[in-house]
């Protein structure tokens, strides 16, 4: 017997929660467990959830007669860890004290309305990432400054291409081209003398470190499909960055004949 909601409402609420968790960058096991626990705490007999980064399938058994299944296709993925924390809190709350369908939808809307950092703050943050990594890898102050400018403009480029629904590979390719072109030009103008460290620092905002680590974690946890899917996404992104950064460097070799 389901408390507070009808069984169909319960399944769609749980799936909505899982979907938003996945879209905001939560781990696969967290998505599966959140849906499972929520359904069980509302009184379902059993809940089977299968999640991969691109889809969720959930089946709940209410009693001997009633078995429901719903799927959800995930098309956009980003990283919003503030929402992951909030959704996790909501899941804990409804598991200990079930709420009605209307209340759950209201809570979800409240989480969606949480503030995000503005575009401008993100430009500065991306510049900061590039600059501090350049310093961390042994760059001088002026090289850090150059990396800040590159990172700042990189984020503008990335957020513009995101609005055009450009493919992730192409975005990263473009980012790679921009980074190495700007680093070579900046060093030529006199911002320091080591373009390697500027490029390595500036590609850090694009490098899929979180994706790569999570994919290996998923595989070790037994979610092989999710792990392989994320690993191939990470490889594609890394290949895009590397290929993009290679273009201006290759041209330079061609023009100068030396490195």
């Amino acid at each position, binding site marked *: 017997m389901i408390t507070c909601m009808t069984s169909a409402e319960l399944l769609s609420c749980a799936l909505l929660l899982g979907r938003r968790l996945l879209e905001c*960058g*939560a*781990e696969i*096991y*967290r998505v*599966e467990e959140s849906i*499972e*626990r929520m359904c*069980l*705490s509302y009184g379902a007999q*059993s809940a089977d959830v299968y999640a991969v980064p691109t889809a969720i399938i959930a089946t709940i058994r209410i009693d001997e007669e009633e078995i429901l299944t719903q799927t959800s296709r995930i098309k956009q993925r980003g*990283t*919003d*860890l*503030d*929402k*992951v*924390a909030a959704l*996790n*809190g909501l899941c804990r709350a409804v598991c200990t004290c079930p709420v009605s369908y209307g209340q759950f939808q209201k809570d979800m809307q409240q989480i969606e309305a949480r503030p995000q*950092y503005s575009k401008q703050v*993100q430009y*500065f*943050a*991306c*510049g*900061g*990432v590039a600059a*501090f*990594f350049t*310093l*961390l*890898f042994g760059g001088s102050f002026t090289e850090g400054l150059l990396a800040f400018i590159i990172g700042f403009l990189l984020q503008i480029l990335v957020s513009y291409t995101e609005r055009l629904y450009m493919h992730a590979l192409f975005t990263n390719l473009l980012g790679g081209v921009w980074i190495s072109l700007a680093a070579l030009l900046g060093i030529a103008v006199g911002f320091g003398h080591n373009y*390697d460290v500027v*490029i*390595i*620092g500036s*590609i*850090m*905002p694009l*490098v899929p*470190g*979180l994706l*790569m*680590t999570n994919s*290996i*974690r998923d595989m*070790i*946890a*037994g979610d092989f499909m999710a792990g392989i899917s994320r690993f191939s996404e990470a490889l594609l992104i*890394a290949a895009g*960055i*590397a*290929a993009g*950064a*290679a273009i201006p*460097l*290759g041209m330079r*070799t061609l023009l100068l004949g030396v*490195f």
Partner: protein
Amino acid sequence: MGAILHQTAASFFASLCFAVLFQVRGRNLVCAAAAGGVCWLVYAVSGAGLGELPAYFLAAVATTIYAEFFARVLRTPAIVYLAAGVIPLVPGGGIYRTMLFCIRGAPEEALSACINTIGIAGAMAMGIVIVSSFVRMLSHQQIIKFQGGSSHAISRK
């Protein structure tokens, strides 16, 4: 020692900026940034005596312990602190060097840089996995004890 402190400070601010890109807010932001500092400090100190891969491994272990600890204290998913915290270990340099050797026409060096990059990513992931599986095991046992030894809700894994 002075160099290590400078690098740790740079790592702190780099993780802070990354946490902003990941939309981490409030006190979580400071904790996530400090995870980056802890990460580099352990990496630099252990790297001096142990060599590259063990240093990556130990830094990942230390950062995950830190993240899991604050996750329990502040009741927030550990990924909030971990994601920005391990970023300084991500082998961006390895990817760059692999690419560079490729376009210079040096396939052997490129392959060796590529394998080194995969090794770093593997050492990082291993460090994270070992600590987080251990913590999950402990917390599941606590739940089972709390619920009197039987719970079908948490029997997974």
